[in-house]
């Protein structure tokens, strides 16, 4: 290996490192990024590892909800959320959402839940990233009639922690509707990519 190459390799690695880090992040198409101007309400949360750890220092150990949150984020490397709420239906394009979904139809990702509801138009996809048979991240894409939400949690997440995520933080556990109302929905559970 020449001296020049030996000098260039660390430089290339140094330049490529942020790109490697970003590789796990959710890339939103420009069409989705522009939705903020149309939305009635927009939530954008970008918290990387150091920010998460810093924020978790302010979580109270006395508050049970915050104590659970601190436990949950202890090993996480990032939380990224984009949520847009619109006044009217059809504010976003299905193609844009499909473009985001397509990012996770790649090796290492598994779509564990995919719900398509023709009745109310609520579509939810949950993708897990597995590394050495352990969960290394989760992506939730929820496309509702008047709401579009992308959640990307990077880092190891235990199943019980995941259950906590679904049933805590002041959000009451949702109850299923009575059996009489027949939904026009189809769900793919455990589809492995």
């Amino acid at each position, binding site marked *: 290996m020449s001296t020049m190459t030996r000098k260039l390799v660390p430089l290339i690695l140094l330049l490529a490192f942020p790109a490697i880090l970003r590789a796990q992040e959710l890339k939103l198409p420009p069409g989705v990024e522009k939705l903020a101007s149309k939305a009635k309400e927009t*939530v954008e*949360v970008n*918290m990387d590892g150091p*920010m*998460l750890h*810093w*924020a*978790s*220092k*302010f*979580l109270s150990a006395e508050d049970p909800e*915050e104590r659970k*949150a601190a436990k*949950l*984020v202890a090993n996480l490397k990032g*939380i990224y*959320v984009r*949520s847009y709420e619109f006044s009217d239906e059809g504010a976003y394009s299905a193609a844009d959402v499909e473009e985001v979904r397509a990012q996770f139809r790649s090796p290492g990702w598994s779509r564990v*839940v995919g*719900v398509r*509801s023709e009745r109310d138009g*609520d579509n*939810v996809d*949950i993708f897990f990233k597995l590394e050495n048979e352990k969960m290394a991240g989760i992506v*939730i894409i*929820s496309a*509702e009639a008047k709401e579009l*939400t992308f*959640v990307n*949690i990077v880092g190891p997440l235990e199943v019980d922690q*995941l259950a906590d*995520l*679904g*049933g*805590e*933080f*002041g*959000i009451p*556990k*949702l*109850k*299923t*509707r009575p*059996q009489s*109302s*027949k*939904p026009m*929905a*189809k*769900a793919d*559970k455990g589809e492995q990519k």
Partner: protein
Amino acid sequence: MTEINKNPNLLEDALRNALRREDAPEGFALRVLARALPQASAAQEAQRASWLSIFSQPLLRWSAVAAVTICLVIGGIYYRNLQRQRAEGEAAKQQLMLALRIAGSKLQLAKEKVNEINTSRPEPQPQNRSPRSRS
């Protein structure tokens, strides 16, 4: 020989008479205090004056003023930074909790949809039929 030498009891009587308990004259305590107080305050005043005499020199006086001002400014900046950091930390915490709430609610939505579909599906027909029913 004196009278006392002749009679030792007279000496004892004289001593007893000289050492007998006698009440202080009226106003004695007040007079003692009135004299002692100005002396004590004068001593304190002298001590204070010796401390303050350090600041009689303009250089020292202004140095002390500057030191106090610097301490106050540094203390103020430190306190303000601490307050700002705390406010930023609280805001970050709120952001984190909001992100978790949104993630939790979407997970719940997916759960609800899956449960909805599972409960609406018709019960599967039993597979192990008896040989008689098959014929």
